[in-house]
């Protein structure tokens, strides 16, 4: 039994170490606080280790990110008692990502460095940010995101579309502030 435990620990560590940068990166982008992200990532690792014997062996990274997201939603967001922006989940509210498409994307994105994208992403409300992080940074499928966040796939789709539109708008604001583009869309 004890030897079995040792093997389990080794197997868990091998897999967890590989995906840990994603786990910690997601925790950091969700909490926007290094201290809270460290706490969240450690808690997720402990939870995952305790439940490792029940892991189905399919996609370890998706399983870990699901634990991190669930923990964040249950523990950290419970602190936030402010009003929720449920109306934005409405598919009818989806705005085009390229609504102000006169601005060429190469100008918008070529000038943005990682720190600015991080900053713009941090401004996106948490439900939409979670969907964008899990999909576009971590490469999770809609179904995996739905499982991780506990919402239907339709909600995942609309949150993702809204999150992307908001992110592009924030990046565009940044580009204007920095002078990469001028109001009206001229380069």
């Amino acid at each position, binding site marked *: 039994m004890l030897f079995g435990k040792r093997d389990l620990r080794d197997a868990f560590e091998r897999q967890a170490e590989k995906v*840990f940068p994603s786990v910690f990166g997601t925790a950091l982008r969700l909490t926007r606080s290094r201290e809270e992200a460290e706490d969240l990532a450690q808690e997720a690792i402990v939870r995952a280790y305790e439940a490792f014997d029940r892991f189905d062996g399919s996609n370890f990274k998706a399983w870990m990110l699901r634990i991190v997201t669930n923990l964040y939603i249950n523990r950290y967001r419970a602190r936030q008692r402010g009003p929720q922006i449920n109306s934005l989940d409405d598919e009818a509210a989806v705005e085009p990502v390229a609504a102000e498409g006169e601005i060429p994307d190469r100008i918008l994105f070529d000038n943005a460095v990682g720190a600015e994208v991080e900053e713009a992403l941090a401004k996106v409300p948490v439900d939409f940010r979670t969907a964008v992080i899990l999909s576009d940074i971590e490469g999770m499928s809609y179904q995996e995101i739905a499982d991780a966040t506990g919402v239907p796939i339709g909600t995942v789709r609309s949150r993702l579309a809204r999150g992307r539109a908001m992110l592009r708008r924030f990046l565009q604001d940044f580009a204007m502030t920095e002078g990469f583009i001028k109001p009206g869309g001229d380069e």
Partner: protein
Amino acid sequence: MIDRLDIHAFADRELPPEELARIEKEIAASPEAQRELEAIRSLKSCLSTRMTAPEAAGVWRACRGRLDELDKVKKTEFIVGKYAWALSALLFCVILSGGLYNHFRGGSVSVGQLASDIGGMTPMPLNNQPQVLQQFAAPTLHIDWSQVLGAAYRNTPEGRIYRFRMQDQKGAFDVVTIPNVSSVEGVQPIDDNMYAGQINGHNCVVRFDSGTLVLVIADRSTSDLRDLTESLYR
């Protein structure tokens, strides 16, 4: 007009096969949809290439530390869980052994127990001295009845305890005899057969006489009490 969510799903390769061809055709036919698709792809590309993984080696070390602690706790719980019956049995044996030892060792009392034993005794008339002497448990002890001011007794499972209130030229003192006691805890030896201690704040000297404990209690020094006790055996 094509549903914008379908354009996102197309970009994310999340469309079911049966819808893929139709949506692709609709996008190809709509410049606006193409622009939207291009914007989504650019954004996805930006996020996947510009967002670097944060430095996490230190946090990973901390995680391993947490796992080590968790393993230690689980190991302890495992051992305790597996051998709980043995630990319980061991504890039971220790308690049982202690009880048996005390039971068979017998006759050992504490000073506190002595204080309790000599309280609340029944007064005894002094007009039947021979009967008292007959029952007396300390045959070699010499009681000078002219010094006895009063007497009392108390029956215990070990036998009858006698208490004599006596007086000599230095004042009053008590002599107590308790049968079937071979040792006392909480007293210090002062010679081969006598021990000194305190009962209820009074000095006392203990002596064993053929299985009976003789206790002499008075507000006198230990040396006076020893002399007094020795005088009772002359």
